[in-house]
Structure formats: structure tokens, C-alpha cells
């Protein structure tokens, strides 16, 4: 019952943001700053995550495939495909659920409990269009881009780790990666990133926008926002795999 009520409130919030899509003047400034915060400011952590994921994948795959009659270029193929199809999107999103989700929930939650959202509404302002819409839009736009960053840095990490550990030379890695490259993998990865970006920003906005109960309440909303974002990202990942693969 309570879950249904929450789902209703969540849907209503998103419906209200969608309906205010035409109020570009209300949200354009916030959209720009959110694009920077969600996109630009996440680049370092995304690159770092990508590089290490690719490196670890390569070393572990090399270890698992240490069998004479398998060509070593397969290591490159497996690493790059796993990155493109799953890891670059999921691991990046789980990291960003903490970074982006927590920030959004705290910002909106603080605005809620200090009556700043009421102040916006009382001026005749559409607070949803001002606060929620630009954050969700920025997530939809930026997560696919970050996915590409993570993929590229992951492959670079894989190449370097393969070379440094002596598992395989860069040329072998790349030829394996190229041989097993399917454009669909990238399309699918981008679709995932798009969905995860939506899940994380919308859940965090929802938790923050409806926060109650002072500083403690904001803390709770933030925790819930990050935990729920992670859970829903994993769920969405499963659903997408079941539907599209």
C-alpha cells in the first residue's frame, strides 16, 4: 500500500517535470550547471574507475585463460566486450550513484526542509521544473557520454595492464578487441547508461524533493537515495539484459 503510494508520488513528480519541459527559461540555467556537475566534474572518477576495471579484467582474464591452445588476443576481446556491454555502464553508474545521487538528494532535501522549495512555489514558481527537470535531463545527457569515457579508458587500462604484466602485447589486445567488436554492444551500453542516468537522478530527486524532518531527515533521504539508486541500477541492468540479449 505504502509502496503504491510512493510509486504514485514518484510518477506524479516525473509527470510534472515532463509537463514543464516547455518552460525552458525556468530551467536552462540550472541545466547548464547540472551538465557541468554531473558530467564534467565526474570525468576524473569515471576515468579512474574505467582504467582500473579494464586493467583488472585483463589480468584476471589472462589468468583464467592460461591454456595453450587459446590465442592470447582473446583476452583483449573478452575485456573490451565486457567493458562495452556491461562494466563501463554498471560500475560507473554504481560509483556515480554515490557521487551524483547523494549530492542531488542532499541539495533538494536541504531546500525542502529549510522551506526553500515552499519559497519557490509561493512565488508562483514551478519548483519541479526548476529543480527536478534539469537534474534528470542532465543525467540523461551525461551518463551516455560518461559511459563512452569509461569504455575508452577501460580499454586503455586493459592494454596497459596487459603490456605491463606481460600477458599480451598491445597489438594482440587491439586485434582481439577489433575482431569481436559489435556496434550493437556500444548501442546497448549507451542505452544502459541512459537508463541508469535516469534511474539515479530521478530517484535522488524524488528522495530529496520529498524529504521531511530536518537535518536528520535529509541524512536519511540521502542514504536511501544512494542505496535505492544502486539497487534500481542493478535491477534495471537485469531487466535490460533479459529483454535485449
Amino acid at each position, binding site marked *: 500500500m505504502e509502496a503504491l503510494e510512493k510509486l504514485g508520488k514518484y510518477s506524479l513528480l516525473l509527470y510534472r517535470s515532463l509537463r514543464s519541459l516547455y518552460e525552458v*527559461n*525556468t530551467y536552462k540555467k540550472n541545466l547548464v550547471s547540472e551538465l557541468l556537475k554531473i558530467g564534467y566534474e565526474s570525468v576524473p572518477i569515471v576515468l579512474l574507475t574505467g582504467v582500473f576495471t579494464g586493467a583488472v579484467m585483463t589480468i584476471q582474464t589472462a589468468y583464467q585463460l592460461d591454456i595453450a591452445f587459446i590465442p592470447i588476443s582473446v583476452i583483449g576481446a573478452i575485456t573490451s566486450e565486457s567493458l562495452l556491454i556491461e562494466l563501463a555502464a554498471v560500475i560507473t553508474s554504481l560509483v556515480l550513484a554515490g557521487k551524483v545521487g547523494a549530492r542531488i538528494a542532499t541539495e533538494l532535501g*536541504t*531546500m525542502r526542509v*529549510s*522551506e*526553500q522549495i*515552499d*519559497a519557490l*512555489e*509561493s*512565488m*508562483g*514558481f*514551478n519548483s519541479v521544473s526548476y529543480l527536478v527537470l534539469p537534474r534528470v535531463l542532465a543525467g540523461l545527457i551525461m551518463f551516455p557520454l560518461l559511459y563512452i569515457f569509461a569504455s575508452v579508458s577501460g580499454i586503455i587500462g586493459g592494454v596497459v595492464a596487459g603490456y605491463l604484466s606481460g600477458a599480451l602485447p598491445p597489438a594482440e589486445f587491439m586485434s582481439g578487441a577489433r575482431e569481436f567488436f559489435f556496434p550493437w554492444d556500444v548501442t546497448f551500453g549507451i542505452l544502459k547508461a541512459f537508463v541508469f542516468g535516469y534511474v539515479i537522478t530521478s530517484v535522488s530527486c524524488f528522495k530529496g524533493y520529498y524529504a521531511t524532518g530536518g537535518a536528520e531527515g535529509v541524512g536519511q533521504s540521502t542514504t536511501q537515495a544512494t542505496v535505492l539508486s544502486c539497487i534500481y541500477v542493478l535491477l534495471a541492468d537485469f531487466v535490460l539484459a533479459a529483454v535485449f540479449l
Partner: protein
Amino acid sequence: MIEIRNLTKSFGSNLVWEDVAFDIEDGETVAIIGRSGCGKSVLVKHLNALMYPDSGEVVIDGKNVFDLEYVELRKMRQRFGVLFQGSALFDSLNTFENIAFPLRYFSELDEAQIKQKVEEALEMVNLAGTGDRSPAELSGGMRRRVALARATILQPDFLIYDEPTSGLDPQTSDEINQLIISMAENLNITSIVVTHDIHSVLKIADRVAYLEEQKLYWHGTVEELRKSDNKKLIDFITASEYQIRS
């Protein structure tokens, strides 16, 4: 005119008040008093539909605000200025931008005109020269005054003040009371003032509404308040007097 009709509000199983009904005439100043937690803030949030009741109506110029479509509701809300209990300044913006905010979105003024208006407003609340400070760099009383400047910048028809003087020293309180009075007189604003402070009430209000026992326990003019022999009301007033003297 604002007509409050048989308003009832509860949060879950917790009844705040029921059957609250009274009118607020144009140009008058109504004080809403009552002990902490009796639902004063909740009541004023119904006037511009920041909260919705379980039942009842708030009628402004013949229209029930709870029936309005969002687009109409937003137009109606622009007729209100609200000074929130915690000031509710936007902490991502500095003082100047907080006051300029409504102008930027709801007026046709150009940058120079906005600058002039905001500076006038800052002067009005005795804060000239603090435009570039962030809300975090202001004291509670200063924040309250910035919020007041922001709430009045579009010259609303109705002004809601939620505890404008609580937690302030007597002199600053007095300054704010003077501002409320001059605002009501000079701009002919209808004011709704939530307060604990009986001295403010006597100074600024035309009429008083007293919330107690989960209903509108008493309402009448300030004259009637002075003469009232209602036990609870007298207790409430003398308790505040006692607080002031001790």
C-alpha cells in the same frame, strides 16, 4: 478578501485543527496566535495552497484556491508574498540575487532597473551594502530582513509573515514591526502575521485569530482581545507577558 471556510487538516491520524473559518478583509492586518505546534504555520500554508486540507475551502476573489489548475494557482500565488519562519533564502544565491530572483523571472525590468529596485529594497530593510554576502554570512535577523525584502519586491496584495520577530532582540523586533506596519499602510497590503509575541499583536494587528484545542478557539478585533474575559485567552496572553518580564 480571503475567506477561510470550514478548513480541516490532519497528518495521518494526527489532527492539526478542524472547522477553522474566518475572513480576512482587504487591507487589514490579522494576527494568528497560539502555542507552539498548534498549527499556525500549517494554517497559513493553506492560504496559497502550499498545503492541501482534508476538507474545506480558501476562497480568494470568489475562487477556491484548492480547485485551481496549477497554471492558475501559480498566478494566484504571485499575489502573495511569504516570509517563512526560517527565512528560506536560497543558499546558492547571494543577498542581491535572492531579492532579485522574483524580478528576474516575473518582471520585465532590465538589469539596471533590477539593480535599482533591489538596492531600494535593501535600504528599506536597513541592509544597504550587504548585497554580495551569502545567506550563510548573515545573522538570523538580517536573513529575516532580506527575506522580507524578497517577499515584498513584487508588491504583493497579501503578505504572510510566519513569526517575523521570534528569536530577535527587542529593538530588531520593533524595527520589523515598524516595517510590517508601514508596509500595510503605504502599500495597502493585506497582512497575515503568525506570532507568539503579544506585544507585536497589540501593536500591528487589526484582528486576532487564536488557535487552541485543535480549532479556531477565539477570534475578534484587538479591542475585543483587550476586553476579553475568556480564561484560556487571558492565560495565553499573560503567559507571554510573564515571559517578557522575566
